[in-house]
């Protein structure tokens, strides 16, 4: 087998803009992430009412995936059970943790809510994406100080090598307050080198991540 892993697409949502495969598709002027994300949702004519119930981390991961997979017809080519989602970030679910903490910090105004609490786990964004795209395969959420491209490539290469996935969505989805940065890669196997399609290597992922 002479197959290699390639990045067949990537989507970045950061700095008030949406970029797909190095092409800027949208730029917003909103200061708050909640408003910016609603702007993205409307611009790309997404129709998914559950979006409005999601916390900000899930909205960010959901929108990045929506735009990335929307153009790639992945669900038509791979079984959901052979598709993986591997995400990483720095502050886990701290953005929503602060909201839950606020709801319990005052005993005279105590209102913990299950619809907030469920999002105090970072992997719930993976669950939201799985529901939307009928993905049932391998998932994992890693927390690290900075984006570690070498780790991502090592781990995901092993998933492909062991035939655990045929296709993988992976990358960085970070949000705390209005600081957000989402860079997701679509990784597939190719038998031969195709012009314009980059190999899935740490240096390539790193340079896409740093280009802003």
């Amino acid at each position: 087998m002479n197959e290699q892993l390639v990045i067949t697409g990537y989507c970045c949502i950061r700095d008030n803009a949406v970029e797909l495969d190095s092409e800027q598709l949208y730029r917003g002027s909103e200061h708050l992430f909640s408003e910016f994300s609603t702007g993205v949702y409307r611009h790309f004519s997404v129709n998914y009412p559950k979006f409005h119930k999601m916390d900000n981390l899930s909205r960010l991961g959901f929108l990045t995936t929506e735009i990335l997979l929307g153009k790639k017809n992945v669900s038509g080519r791979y079984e959901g059970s052979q598709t993986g989602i591997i995400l990483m970030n720095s502050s886990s679910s701290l953005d929503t943790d602060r909201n839950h903490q606020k709801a319990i910090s005052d005993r005279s105004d105590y209102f913990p809510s299950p619809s907030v609490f469920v999002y105090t786990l970072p992997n719930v964004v993976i669950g939201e994406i799985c529901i939307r795209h009928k993905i049932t395969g391998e998932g994992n959420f890693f927390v690290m100080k900075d984006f570690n491209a070498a780790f991502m490539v090592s781990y995901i290469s092993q998933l492909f090598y062991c035939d655990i996935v045929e296709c993988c969505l992976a990358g960085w989805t970070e949000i705390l307050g209005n600081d957000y940065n989402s860079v997701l890669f679509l990784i597939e196997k190719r038998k031969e080198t195709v012009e314009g399609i980059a190999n899935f290597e740490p240096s390539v992922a790193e340079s896409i991540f740093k280009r802003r």
Partner: protein
Amino acid sequence: MTDIYVSACNIITPLGFTTGENAKSILSGITGIRLHEDPAISPEPFHASLIDTVSLDENFSVLGNPVDYSRFEKMAVLSINDVIKNTGIGIHGNRTLFILSTTKGNIDLLGSKPGGQAQPTDVYLWHTAQKIQKHFGFLNEPIVVSHACISGIQAIITGSRLIRGGFYDHVIINGTDIITEFVYSGFSSFKSLSTGPCRPFDKSRDGLSLGEGSGTMILSVSKDDSEKRPVTVGHGFSTNDANHISGPSRTGEGLYLAISKLTDREPDYPGFISAHGTATPYNDEMESIAITRAGMQDIPVNSLKGYWGHTLGAAGVLESIMSIWSLINGVVPATLGFTEMGVTNPLNITRSSIKVSTGKCLKIASGFGGCNAVTSFSVQ
């Protein structure tokens, strides 16, 4: 497939600060769950399995100044220290990775500043992992796995994959979680907490009991010669129900898929299954459906939640260690709290401790976000 050995396991819970102490209490039917009155966690008295702070600090004081470490860090450092003390494997080189498995880390420190809006670096999970890494002088930057209630199994699966891929020779896995007002209030708002000690798979089960714990194991390409009966870790898979973020699939779809992926590669049946068995009505029902669909309804199944409660991100590590203990010693504990079958697909739930002859077990778990995971362990 490369053999990956599991060795030098430690468990810290209210039942003891070593695996041996925990196993002894469990086989005697002792539980760590009791009624607590602690307004810092809950306005009402509550059942949980909590580690005594005084005894934690006493034990920790030989390793460092208790005021320099958080409750979470003290538990993790004590557990890892016990493993390092007892292992025959050289883990201090650059071929070792430390993986921390946790859902919430030092989340108690989030509320320690007025208004709860402060975010000291201590609440970042990577910062906690780095602090533990520096305590022991591990060379590589640690990785945190935070994947709800399957975190522990995910950490074990991740570690074994990284070793099989040749990226590391040894992986130290620690799973830790503490019980805080943050966690208690959340599970309470979900109405998932039991009124008394939890009763896995029982007809009268009404929810889970929360528990604190820390567990550590070493995964390695090397066999630890000090272990009389070497244990290896098999394949592992995680799946997603793609159905609901806070409720398990009614058909057990994701868990069944995970078990099927494993049995496709390891057709030999296990001698027992260590279930997630949280004692919530939905979880246990879902597990019974998935296990039955996999044709494993006659295989002995146990849940350890009746002894330790649900230890969240530590659960997969603690319960795997106890399962490994069972493989080595040939005894699977009773499912404490279980008396009458309470799932529609009856399983072979252990009512008392039983002997096992086959040297293999499955460890399964499911969690929020629709996630499921499975791995296997075998004794040689």
